[in-house]
């Protein structure tokens, strides 16, 4: 069954072109963030000038700080809620309203963001909630918990259930069996889910634009309003920093999940 399929020249060419297409724009962006010239397209030698500029840009720093706080808070609550939802869906057998529940969890994955953002804003306005940090955090939690649920649920689905059953046959009650057996096994997926939620929140422009209030712009909102005015080298620097941060989170989290699952099971790739 594992006869290696032949790689044709066509296969290799499409892989190479595909990867080049995916990576070149980002590489260009990163390189030009170190450009000394004010003109974005003329290479003027290496320089950290635009990073310096960014660290002196109060509005950008404030927006970055806001984004980080929202991302950490919403990713954490989304991981909690999403994991619970995944456990309920894959272990809870039948319960009342299960179809509605799973429908509500899968829909936001593809729902156009303008709709999700608009509907949440109307809720916040109708309930007179003060818009800012908390409303954006709630909105991001709602969106990202669905992604966490899917990641964790696919891990739970591939798990051997006889392990849980064995634990209970040996006298564990269900909650203890879950904590002692299931939870360590799905930990890599939970970590992956948190990462996904974190980056999605850090990235979101549309939903944050709808649900934030005056004076509390997130980083994507600031970047967006700058980009509309044209390309600025400082934006390249900020983007490079965000890419570096995300790379750090990915590396850190995959190291953590490797440590926690030293039994050889690799982390879910999403």
């Amino acid at each position: 069954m594992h006869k290696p399929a032949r790689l044709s020249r066509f296969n290799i060419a499409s892989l190479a072109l595909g990867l080049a297409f995916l990576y070149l724009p980002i590489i260009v962006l990163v390189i030009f963030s170190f450009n000394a010239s004010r003109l974005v397209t003329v290479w003027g030698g290496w320089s950290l000038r635009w990073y310096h500029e960014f660290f002196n840009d109060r509005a950008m720093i404030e927006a970055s700080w806001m984004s980080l706080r929202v991302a950490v808070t919403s990713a954490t609550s989304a991981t909690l809620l999403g994991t619970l939802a995944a456990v309920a869906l894959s272990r809870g057998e039948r319960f009342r309203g299960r179809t509605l529940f799973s429908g509500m969890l899968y829909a936001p994955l593809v729902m156009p963001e303008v709709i999700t953002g608009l509907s949440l804003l109307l809720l916040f306005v109708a309930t007179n909630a003060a818009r800012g940090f908390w409303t954006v955090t709630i909105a991001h939690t709602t969106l990202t918990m669905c992604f966490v649920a899917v990641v964790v649920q696919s891990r739970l689905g591939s798990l051997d259930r006889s392990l849980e059953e064995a634990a209970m046959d040996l006298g564990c009650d269900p909650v203890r069996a879950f904590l002692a057996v299931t939870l360590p096994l799905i930990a890599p997926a939970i970590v992956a889910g948190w990462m996904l939620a974190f980056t999605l929140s850090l990235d979101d422009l549309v939903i944050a634009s709808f649900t934030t209030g005056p004076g509390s712009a997130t980083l994507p909102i600031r970047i967006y309003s700058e980009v509309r005015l044209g390309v600025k080298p400082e934006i390249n620097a900020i983007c490079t920093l965000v890419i570096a941060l995300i790379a750090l989170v990915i590396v850190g989290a995959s190291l953590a999940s490797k440590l926690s699952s030293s039994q050889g099971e690799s982390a879910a790739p999403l």
Partner: protein
Amino acid sequence: MSARRIFARPARFAAIAPYVWMVLFFLVPFGFVLKISLSQTAIAQPPYEPVFDLTAGWAAIRAAFAALGIDNFRLLVSDDLYVFAYLRSLTVAVMSTALLVLIGYPIAYGMARLPRRWHAVAMVLVIVPFWTSFLIRIYAWINILQHDGLLNQILMALHLVSQPAVWLSTDAAMYIGIVYSYLPFMILPLYATLAKMEPALEEAAGDLGAPPWQVFWLVTFPLSLPGVGAGVLLCFIPIVGEFVIPDLLAGSNSLMIGQTLWLEFFTNKDWPVASAAAIVLLLVLLVPLLLYERLQKRQLEQGR
């Protein structure tokens, strides 16, 4: 009573918190969208009327209900601007999904044919750009496509064009941006089905004398259709409502529905019309959404 059944009961309780959350922050908000789509625009805060005031007594609430109407939907259907926006959104989504299949399929196919030990690496390589911010990836393309950007510099250095071509604010730029942003969503489901496929089937077809293109067309492609379906839905639905990519990369002479909704909401402050546009968008997407949901459910629940 089996251990499985005993485990199920506390697992059901796990549903309570996320259930309540999703009802409060996903389901209930749609009620508000529906209600406001039936209201009238007003110069007030909030900018619509009637505003329901539960303390005002039954008669006031009845009066407020009576003031609701479908005028906003009539406007959407009768005004060319909106009709064209919906049509454009659907056209753009169909075109870009087709492009995504054409571009994503060879890449996924190449990945699936790599030796086993390379599979994980290839997968990570496809996913990593998807982790970097969406907005950043669009911005990267603005860098490249602008008037004196890299693309024009290369084209001129190769003497393919004599003066810089206009790329930004064109549909071409928008399609590049959409394909770039959604490519991983197309590749991954395609790869998942292609990698699971039994290579013996292709070999058998080859042994029986089918030329490679026929092997692909009669064996590989039909077997990969579930993956194609998942990828198409995963891309098509969000592209219809896309806002950022057309806003930053396409010209402003024809808008997609996500842009008109944004414009009505933020610029014109016409919340009722924006809500009605959202409801219509949702109705347009209802069939693909339901299809997607069934697919997703089947996929996740097959494993147990």
